[in-house]
Each structure stands twice: as structure tokens, then as C-alpha cells.
């Protein structure tokens, strides 16, 4: 019963709580947080249940109002979408657990509105993942983007301007996507993804479809911040409040990447976008540019959150590269990196948030070993996540890079291989300089001051913030160890013909 309706339940849980939180908030302000976390917990456990159900019993489809597609709107819960749903809902649950204390400090008195918008954001993300209808997807893209702008704008003094820029660029992206599905609809007469996948091969030579494909790739490229369309990302992530950036950075661009993956591999078909047209190569080349550019800019940033934002540009490049390779290993690498990077980035942004709450800043040049002494667990989690980003086995980040490398070797793209290896080195540079400062650089300026260093007491964040940090860090080790099992599941998600 629950399984049959699961595709509709997931977005509805969040939509209902987005509406109920402000209503109940009028009566009692404190109810907002428990309500939001309960909804997220319910969604996370349902999506885990749904993933197991789909793996065992096959795809669930849900027809809205009982209208059979292609007339009605269809929600599809297949192995790939259920997998991504698990990733985003679990990460959101951890980030919101962490958010309790942070939001209380950062956004005093505005929690009701904040959590309501967070729920709306999750509605958008879940809907984008589950829907099987192109126009429905557009509406969910806009729901998630609009709430994203709001969540970013409540941050620091400069945040509204960053959010406005994101709004202008994001609207161009969404409008390009809308224009693209317009072309597709007028030539094929359907908006249903499965239906369209059957119709498109019959009219392969039509230039209309080519234009639609380009518009959709550019539109979604802006949403997932593929280089050189990443301009909105660094400022937005830097100036957003901790919980917003920890929520949007790991999930937002990943969902964009998922949508691109879904449309390219499952609707347009691998043959069309990689063999007949050089779209796949273009995506791969731009992603490589993003990997190098993002890593170099991350090295140049002096502030931790900005560094992480640029590192996001680079990491999205890995997913784009996996999509662009268009071979089985590339697909596995992209999907696995989607999971791993969501966990790594959530962990790193949460650590940056912990530092900002306790130390008041996350400026890299001011870090020294007093950080290690004051926040041992936070810095331990940071170390695990940083090593995973660099790609040391057995941490999760190693395996997604491993599959991407296998993918480049399989297609004999040696330049891409060089880019992946070089970027690992650059990752090492920008993470190790923090680790070096935190573990090596003495906070004692003069030797006579040694008593000072003994006086530094442990000053760790509250348990509700520490626990999610540690769970994410341990999760990276667990994901690394379980990678064989996960990759076996990813084989089931592959489109036919790959």
C-alpha cells in the first residue's frame, strides 16, 4: 500500500509540512523545528524503505489522478531515482539535525519561515528526482530554485546580492530548459519521459531535437554549475547561512546533475548524444575545465567556505566528466560521486559552520593548532572528509575517482585521465594546507608562552552539532568499505544499451 503510493508521498510530505509549519507557527513558534525534522526523518526512512523495495521488486510508477501516461503525469521510482532520493533525504536529515543550534543563533526569531522554506526546497528536490514528466520537472526546478534563493538571501550582509545574481542566472537556466522542452513537445507531442524516449529515435535527424538538446543541456548546466556556467555558485555558497549552504551545496547541484543524467541517458539515449553528436565530448571538456579551474581557485581562496564553494565547482566537474564519458565506468563514477560528494561536502560545510559558531570565523590564514586542541572531533571529521576529497583509499572519494579513471582508460581519453590525476594533486594542496596549519602550526608565538598552550581547553560544539558531523565522517569510511555493494546496485540503474 505504502510502496504503491511512495513516489507521490515523498514530495507530499515536504509540501504538506511547508504549508503546515507557518500555520502551526502562528499558534506556537517552537513547533517549527520538531515538525520539520520529523517530516525529514519520515521522508528519509521512507526513501530507504523505497530503495530496498525497488531493488527487490522493481520500479514503482504512480499515475496522478489515475490518468495513464502519456496523457496523465507519471511519477517514476526506479533504482536510480530511489537511490538519489535516499542520498538527498539522508543528507538533509543530518544537516537539519545539525541546523537546530545554528539556525537558533543565526536566524533568531525567523525559524518558522526558515524551516517552511527548507521544506519547500526539499519538495522541489524530491519532485525533480521522482517525476517522469518534463514540464512537471520544470515546475519542481523552479520550486527548489526559488526557495534556494530565499535560503541564501537570509545570510550575511552581501547575501541578497549573491542571491539576486543567482536568481537572474538561475532563471535563464530554467527558461532555457523550458524552451527546450517546448521544442521537444511541439515535435513529438508528448511530455512523458518514457514515451519521449520511444519517439525520439524515429526522428533523429530533425534539427529541432538538436536545438532542444542544446537548450536543455545549457539550462541544466547552469543549474548544476558546470564550468563556465558556475558564476553564481561561489558567492551564494559563501554568504549563505551555514545550514543553507550545507543543505544546498551537497544536494542542489547534485540534483541538477541527476536530471541531466536522467535526460541524456534515459530520454535522448546514449547513441544520440555521444555517438551522433559531440555533446558528450563537449560536456566532458567543459567539466575538465571546471575541475582545473575550481581546484586552482580553491587554492587561491583564503576563506574556508569560499574554498569549499570552488571545490564544489571542481567536484561537479567529476560528475560531468562521468556523464561525458558515456560508458559504463563513467556512469558508475558519476552516480557514485554524486553519493560520495554529497556526504563529503555536507561534512565539510558543517565543519566550516562549527568553526564559525565556535571560533567566529573560518579564515584559513588564522588557523593554528589551537583549533585542534579546542575542537578535536570537528577537526578529525574534517580530516576524514578532506582525505576522502583527495581520494585516499579506503575512503569513499577514492572509489568514485577510481571508476572515473577506469572510464577514461576504457575510452582511451588520456587527457581526461591526466586531468583527474592532476586535480587530485590540487585537491591535496588546498586541503593539506589547512591540515598542516591545524596540526603543525604552533599557536604559541614565543617559547616563554608555553603555559598559554596548556591553557587551551577543549571547547567542542554542542552534541546536536557534533553528532551529524561525526556521522557524516564515519559514513565516508562506511561508504568506502561498502563500495562493492553500492556499485552492484548501480549496475541495476544503468540504462539499457550502455
Amino acid at each position, binding site marked *: 500500500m505504502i510502496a504503491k503510493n511512495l513516489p507521490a508521498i515523498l514530495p507530499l510530505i515536504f509540501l504538506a509540512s511547508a504549508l503546515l509549519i507557518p500555520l502551526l507557527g502562528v499558534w506556537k513558534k517552537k513547533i517549527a523545528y520538531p515538525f520539520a525534522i520529523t517530516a525529514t526523518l519520515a521522508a528519509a526512512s521512507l526513501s530507504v524503505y523505497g530503495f530496498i523495495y525497488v531493488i527487490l521488486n522493481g520500479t514503482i510508477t504512480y499515475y496522478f489522478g489515475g490518468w495513464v501516461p502519456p496523457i496523465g503525469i507519471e511519477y517514476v521510482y526506479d533504482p536510480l531515482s530511489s537511490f538519489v532520493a535516499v542520498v538527498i533525504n539522508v543528507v538533509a536529515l543530518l544537516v537539519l539535525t545539525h541546523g537546530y543550534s545554528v539556525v537558533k543563533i543565526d536566524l533568531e526569531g525567523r525559524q518558522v519561515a526558515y524551516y517552511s522554506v527548507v521544506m519547500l526546497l526539499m519538495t522541489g528536490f524530491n519532485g525533480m528526482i521522482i517525476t517522469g514528466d518534463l*514540464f512537471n520537472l*520544470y515546475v519542481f526546478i*523552479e520550486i527548489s530554485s526559488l526557495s534556494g534563493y530565499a535560503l541564501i538571501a537570509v545570510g550575511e550582509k552581501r547575501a541578497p546580492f549573491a542571491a539576486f545574481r543567482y*536568481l537572474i542566472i538561475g532563471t535563464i537556466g530554467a527558461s532555457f530548459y523550458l524552451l527546450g522542452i517546448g521544442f521537444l513537445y511541439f515535435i513529438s507531442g508528448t511530455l512523458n519521459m518514457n514515451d519521449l524516449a520511444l519517439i525520439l529515435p524515429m526522428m533523429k535527424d530533425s534539427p529541432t531535437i538538436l536545438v532542444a538538446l542544446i537548450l536543455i543541456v545549457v539550462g541544466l548546466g547552469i543549474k548544476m554549475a558546470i564550468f563556465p556556467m558556475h558564476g553564481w555558485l561561489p558567492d551564494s555558497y559563501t554568504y549563505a547561512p551555514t545550514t543553507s549552504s550545507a543543505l544546498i551545496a551537497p544536494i542542489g547541484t547534485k540534483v541538477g546533475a541527476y536530471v541531466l543524467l536522467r535526460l541524456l541517458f534515459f530520454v535522448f539515449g546514449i547513441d544520440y548524444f555521444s555517438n551522433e553528436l559531440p555533446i558528450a565530448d563537449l560536456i566532458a571538456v567543459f567539466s575538465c575545465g571546471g575541475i582545473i579551474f575550481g581546484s586552482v581557485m580553491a587554492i587561491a581562496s583564503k576563506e574556508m567556505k569560499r574554498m569549499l564553494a570552488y571545490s564544489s565547482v571542481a567536484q561537479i566537474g567529476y560528475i560531468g566528466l562521468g556523464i561525458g564519458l558515456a560508458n559504463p565506468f563513467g556512469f558508475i563514477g558519476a552516480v557514485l560521486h554524486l553519493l560520495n560528494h554529497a556526504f563529503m561536502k555536507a561534512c565539510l560545510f558543517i565543519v566550516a559552520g562549527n568553526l564559525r559558531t565556535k571560533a567566529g570565523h573560518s579564515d584559513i590564514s588564522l588557523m593554528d593548532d589551537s583549533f585542534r586542541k579546542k575542537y578535536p572531533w570537528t577537526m578529525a571529521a574534517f580530516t576524514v572528509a578532506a582525505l576522502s576529497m583527495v581520494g585516499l583509499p579506503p575512503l569513499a572519494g577514492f572509489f568514485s575517482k577510481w571508476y572515473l579513471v577506469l572510464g577514461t582508460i576504457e575510452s582511451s581519453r588520456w587527457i581526461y585521465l591526466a586531468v583527474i590525476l592532476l586535480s587530485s594533486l590540487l585537491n591535496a594542496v588546498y586541503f593539506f594546507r589547512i591540515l598542516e596549519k591545524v596540526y603543525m602550526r604552533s599557536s604559541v608565538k614565543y617559547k616563554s608562552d608555553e603555559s598559554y598552550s596548556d591553557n587551551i581547553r577543549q571547547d567542542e560544539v554542542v552534541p546536536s552539532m557534533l553528532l551529524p558531523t561525526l556521522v557524516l565522517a564515519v559514513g565516508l569510511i562506511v561508504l568506502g568499505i561498502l563500495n562493492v555493494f553500492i556499485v552492484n546496485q548501480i549496475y541495476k540503474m544503468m540504462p539499457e544499451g550502455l
Partner: protein
Amino acid sequence: MFDFIAGHYDYWFIISLITIGLYGMIIKKNLVKKLIGMTIFQASIILFYISSSIKAGATVPILSDKFNSADVANYINPLPHALMLTAIVVGVATVGVAFALLVLIYKRYNTLDEKELIERMK
């Protein structure tokens, strides 16, 4: 050639609107003008859907003897119009959020000029 240009006049109109919108968003320095560009851009896409689904001499999609719509070829496909109603709502929401952001920016920096704004942020 003339037929090609004259026969697609609505598309030329939409293309020029899209260009004007993009121009406004990219070149104009005033944030409100950027927003106006964005609205024009969105409107052009709505017009694209509407003008593409138009059919001369067709009737409403209601199955009734009055409208002579028993034959499929006689009525206009209502779906693009319905889609665009949703897109209009989305557009209105976007403009609403954008204006809220502009109010915030103006309160904090007392200007909406991009150059000036970047200057004051330093």
C-alpha cells in the same frame, strides 16, 4: 525567401524579444533593469508556446455538437496554454522573490546600481 521571413513573423518577434531580454539581463547595470530584462525573457517563452499551438479556424476542445469538435483536427490543443498558465505563475513568483531581494539590497546599500554596489561591498 520572403515567404520564409513573412511566414514566420511571430517567431522573428519572439527571437527579438529573447535577445532584448538577454541583453537587458547581461548588459544593463541597474538591477531593476536586469529584472525587467528577465520578465521580457520569460514572456517571450510564454509567447513561443502560445503562438506555436495556434491553429487558424479551430475551435475549443470540448466534445459537443455545438462546437463541431468531434473530429480531432478541428480543435486547438489546450495543453500548451495550460502549461503556460503554470509558467506565468512561476514567473510571477520569481519576480516577487526578486523584488524582495532588491528591497533588501537597497536597504543595506542604498543603491541598485551594480557598479556602485560592488564598490560599496569592498
